[in-house]
């Protein structure tokens, strides 16, 4: 959960220390990688193969753990049916339990699940009666991608200029303001911000912006549809980005500060290049790299972690789907989503490790 400053260069476990759940993660700001020195005797390609192979047992362990935890929770959709149907008898209950295989111990259920998954069948959602993978990836995943993607874009476009500005005007009024605003952004509870936004824009200014939802049905024509979607997206993206903008601004700032003081910048300056060229051509390009690493690590968390925003704004995304599935014990939906995100986390960690290694010549996985 935390954001530590512990990225050890040269020794690649995984830089996932910088990852955070988008809605929750705070703990201040991630910081620049420290300097460490570790050497092992393995080459790059071998490392890669090793990491990819390690994915499989890791995923296996994760799936076992998650399934076991989920299975331990009593309650299932059949009990929901019982409540809604006063004519429901005990015989019906027993029959349905047997039908869904819920009367077997959890490890048997896990084995059957695993068997099906290996064949690509992720089971049917008990809530919605359709294939779980289908439901999650066709109806929930795109919404989360939309929300998180836009928020990522927005955060990046705001954080980079703000961070650079802050670094260049260090200790000035601008820096001070941006710093304080960043701190506020990191400390604000996202669900509260969402509620306040709804209050201001949907309640106070009646209907100016919708208080949630994906879109208004029945809208036709490209421009109206686009406009409608944007209206619905505005507040959730704003709420979701607040934390990220704050974090990335500060990160960009410290990254920029560090880069400016590095030797090659001094060299460029002493060569007589204009300040502007120095900043934008040399310093910025190097300073932005760690931020991109950070972004890469944040991406998987965006998928599962936006649940608070999705709850407040009634956004039918993946985070909320997981939450609902957990509460009513819809194993199939919960498992397919959770495994997908775990896979994403592992993949992105690997990718950013590789990218960082390729880009930064000082790191050797040797």
């Amino acid at each position, binding site marked *: *959960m*935390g954001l*530590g400053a*512990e990225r050890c260069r040269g*020794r690649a*476990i995984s830089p*996932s*220390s910088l*990852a955070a759940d988008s*809605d*929750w*993660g*705070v*703990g*201040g700001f991630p*910081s620049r990688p420290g300097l*460490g020195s*570790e050497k092992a005797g393995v080459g790059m390609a071998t490392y890669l193969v090793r990491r990819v192979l390690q994915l499989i047992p*890791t995923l296996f*362990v*994760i799936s076992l*753990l*998650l399934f076991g935890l989920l299975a*331990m*929770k*009593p309650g299932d959709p059949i009990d929901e049916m019982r409540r809604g149907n006063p004519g429901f008898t005990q015989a019906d209950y027993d029959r349905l339990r047997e039908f869904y295989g819920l009367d077997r111990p959890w490890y048997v259920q896990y084995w059957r699940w695993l068997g099906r998954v290996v064949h690509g069948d992720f089971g049917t959602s008990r809530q919605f009666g359709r294939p779980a993978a289908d439901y999650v990836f066709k109806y929930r995943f795109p919404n989360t991608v939309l929300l998180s993607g836009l928020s990522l874009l927005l955060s990046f476009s705001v954080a980079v200029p703000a961070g650079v500005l802050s670094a260049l005007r260090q200790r000035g009024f601008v820096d001070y303001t941006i710093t*304080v605003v960043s*701190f*506020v952004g*990191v*400390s*604000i*509870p996202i*669900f*509260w*911000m969402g*509620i*306040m936004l*709804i*209050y201001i824009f949907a*309640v106070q200014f009646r209907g100016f912006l919708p208080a949630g939802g994906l879109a208004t049905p029945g809208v036709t024509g490209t421009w109206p549809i686009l406009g409608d979607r944007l209206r619905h997206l505005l507040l959730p993206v704003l709420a979701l980005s607040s934390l990220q903008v704050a974090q990335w601004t500060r990160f960009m700032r410290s990254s920029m*500060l560090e880069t400016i003081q590095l030797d090659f910048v001094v060299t460029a300056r002493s060569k007589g290049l204009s300040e502007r060229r120095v900043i934008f051509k040399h310093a910025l390009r190097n300073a932005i790299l760690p931020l991109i690493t950070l972004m890469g690590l944040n991406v*998987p*968390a965006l*998928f*599962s*972690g936006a*649940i*608070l925003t999705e709850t*407040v704004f009634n956004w039918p995304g993946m985070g909320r789907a*997981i*939450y609902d599935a*957990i*509460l009513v014990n819809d194993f199939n939906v919960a498992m397919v*989503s*959770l495994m997908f*995100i*775990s896979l994403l*986390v*592992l993949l992105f960690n690997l990718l950013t490790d590789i990218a960082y290694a390729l880009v930064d010549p000082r790191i050797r996985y040797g």
Partner: protein
Amino acid sequence: MTDTTRTRSKQAEVENDLQTRPGESQWRYAWRSFRRHRLAMAAGVVLVILILGAIFAPWLTPYDFARQNRSNMFGSPSLRVAANAQTIDKCARPQVLWWRCGAHPFGTDDLGRDILTRVLHGGRVSLLVGFSAAFISTLLGSLIGAIAGYWGRAVDAFASRLIEIMLSIPQLPLLLILVALLANPGVRFGAMLTGALGDSKNIVIIIVVIILLSWMSTARLVRGQIIALRERDFVEAARAIGASRMRIVFRHLLPNVTSVIIVQATLMTGEAILIESGLSFLGLGIQPPAVSWGNMLSRAQGFLYYPNGVYTALFPGLFILLTVLCVNFVGDGLRDALDPRYHGRA
């Protein structure tokens, strides 16, 4: 001038420097450095006020946080006592300093309870969860990190693998599952907890779950530090005289890492407070009738359209923001003061 002196004087220029005084301990220096950070100092003062307010909450207000007054639901915030107030018999005491029974500075909530009182009481829970979860999680993480870092080899490999797996599992859903599981009386463990802990079961569960999911970052941090430190001379020396591994870790290595640990603990507090309020907001955290900032917000969602309903949402959230903000400022100030790597970055 040599390179090092040039860099150092440049740094001094840049920082408007704080030179170490001769014979000064690391802590004194850190304190002086912290004091120069005006924002952090101010935040520290505010934090202390909040903590005191939370501790003394039962005596600071004329109201009992649970006492309902259904004839005055959704009252507007005002410092004056309303003319038709029949609240005298609903108060715990008639007056505290300027605050008369009948006056509601933050208004009243959906059952007529004073919001300011509830915010203060909510702070007790939120701050308790925040500080204890952060503290214990940092301790646990430091221990594991130190042992992994110093022992190396198999132990390190195992710990690192464990950390990686824990970090790969989607943190938030895991949190939800664990809380839903442990708080569930139908599960054997949950029932045991209810029996043992009674009313405070939820608080303990949340603290435990937050610890379980946040020790990893501290562990990696400390591990990195230990690895960097373990080849140093003083460690060599200790080994040479035959000190046991545990002794080296505890007496020699960890004390050098305390500054990092302190910073980590402070920053973790803010996180823990946000996690607790988020959980309570989703309905899995502190349960009513106990009051926490998060569950006040959860209730408030449905009342945005009621007249004065927004105040039930505004104030708890504001206080969460204020507390976490102060904690973050203090943490940042501490990081500047204690961690030599961050000098000049402020």
